[in-house]
């Protein structure tokens, strides 16, 4: 097989990439592969991502694309960070910024994390400790839908842990699921969530 890029030399490098669910095959010769390697990688630095996914109106927030200027001047009530400032620095000002700019940050974050949109993994211990005020726990674990999502994610991790015979980890996950589920016991709209132990 000849190299896809130069069409002259024999293709000796064969790569199969899975990107966004689509399969992409590449067949290149050593020379073209080296040239391609020296080009910028697909992992864009944050500032490039911001200019690509946030600056152009309509990309970040299609619903409000007719008022990009007012968005740029929206200011976080807690730290006074504006979107414009964030676009320049790539850094946010405080934890509250994530709530204030959640809508605009969403697409950028998904792109930066290769499609990852929701947190899966460790949760602060204090959210899981009993004896906490309900409001406090809800603030950390989200509303009932978010807690249900978390339980789904935990269940998936539990299955994986069992498949990999990581029983200690599985036990920890079961405990965490019980505690997340116990938040619902106060008669929240989602009703009770069962945990299979």
């Amino acid at each position: 097989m000849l190299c896809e890029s130069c069409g002259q030399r024999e293709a000796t490098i064969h790569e199969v990439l899975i990107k966004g669910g689509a399969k992409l095959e590449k067949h290149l010769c050593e020379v073209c592969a080296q040239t391609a390697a020296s080009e910028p990688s697909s992992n864009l630095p944050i500032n490039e991502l911001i200019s690509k996914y946030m600056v152009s109106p309509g990309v970040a927030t299609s619903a409000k694309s007719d008022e990009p200027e007012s968005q740029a001047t929206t200011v976080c009530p807690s730290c006074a960070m504006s979107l414009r400032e964030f676009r320049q620095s790539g850094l946010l000002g405080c934890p509250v910024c994530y709530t204030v700019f959640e809508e605009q940050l969403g697409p950028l974050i998904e792109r930066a994390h290769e499609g990852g949109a929701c947190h899966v993994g460790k949760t602060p211990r204090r959210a899981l400790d009993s004896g906490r005020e309900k409001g406090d726990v809800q603030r950390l674990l989200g509303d009932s839908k978010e807690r249900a999502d978390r339980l789904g994610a935990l269940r998936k991790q539990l299955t994986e842990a069992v498949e990999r015979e990581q029983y200690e980890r599985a036990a920890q996950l079961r405990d965490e699921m019980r505690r997340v589920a116990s938040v619902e016991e106060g008669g929240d709209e989602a009703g009770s969530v069962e945990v299979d132990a």
Partner: protein
Amino acid sequence: MSAGRPGWTGGAEWLRGEGEASDVVMSSRARIARNLAGYPFMTKATGEDRVQVLDLCRRRVLSDEFKRASGVESVMWVDLHEVDKLERQVLVERHLISRQHSRGKLTTGAGGVDQPRGVAIGLPSERVAVMVNEEDQLRIQVIRSGLALSELLEQIDQIDDALEQGLDYAFHPRFGYLTACPTNIGTGIRFSVMLHLPGLKLTGEIERVKRAAEDMSLAVRGFYGEGSDAAGDLYQVSNQTTLGKSEHVLVHELEREIVPRIIDYERHARRTLLEKRRAMIDDKTNRALGVLRTARLLGVEESMQLLSHARLGILLGLIEDVEQHTVNDLMLLVQQAHMQCAAARELSQQERRIERATLVRKQLGGS
């Protein structure tokens, strides 16, 4: 160097060349980013905020819970805004603080060396380090020789819990642990593995491996992280994304799927060199040792390249009278600040080159 502090003139435990796959994997590291609820990030922190955060975090890292969870004998705290450049540089070279933390500046250029910030270092192993007031308020790191990501995750998880006992972390139901830069949110965890890949470099296959790793959303960097080159054929491979995958899934992917493939690839390249180009590789590795044992002037980059080839020679059995850990240690001790630290004074570039060659000759039994 202030009295009572370790001399920093010895090798580091994570460079000892022990543990799983240590012929290829020099060390493994896990680092998590955390910020406190109720305080602005560094970008918007006032002088008062920084002092308060520093005070809160220092108290936690000096607590018994932290010491127990870290499994260290003692914890040394360094106020980085009060120590000189040389001492900060030594900490950078030992991978205990980032270059950014040494300078006290954010990526935006804001800040400066006098910004209140510090680092806690677990002694004597230096396996645990906690940076306070870097880009995020807390950056906790654990590091070990060889491939050991699962153990590191377990340890860093315990340390994180111990710190959290007295701190309120900023957390969001959708975005997880919140960080100043949105690229670190979610778990806030980065695993990295430092690989010694002289075989792939010599067979010209390194670019292919780098590309393959980058296509799998991994970052490939040099010995000193972002923006540094691969001195001594050392490459750091780390996860690029922190949102949407649990810590355990990340470890599994890296430790059981991706890194073993790179290790196999490197071992294959080394075998090929030995079987098909034996005379060339025998010459290259022994010649490197010869230069190291006789040179009168040595620069850092040249030393690193020669040490890399000497290490390869030892691993291939072509060099028998030098221990691997001696070469590993030298990779750290030849660095600029370490040279000056050993001499206990600032050295000019020429003086450093002379001192470096002298140290290397002495350690490797040269003339």
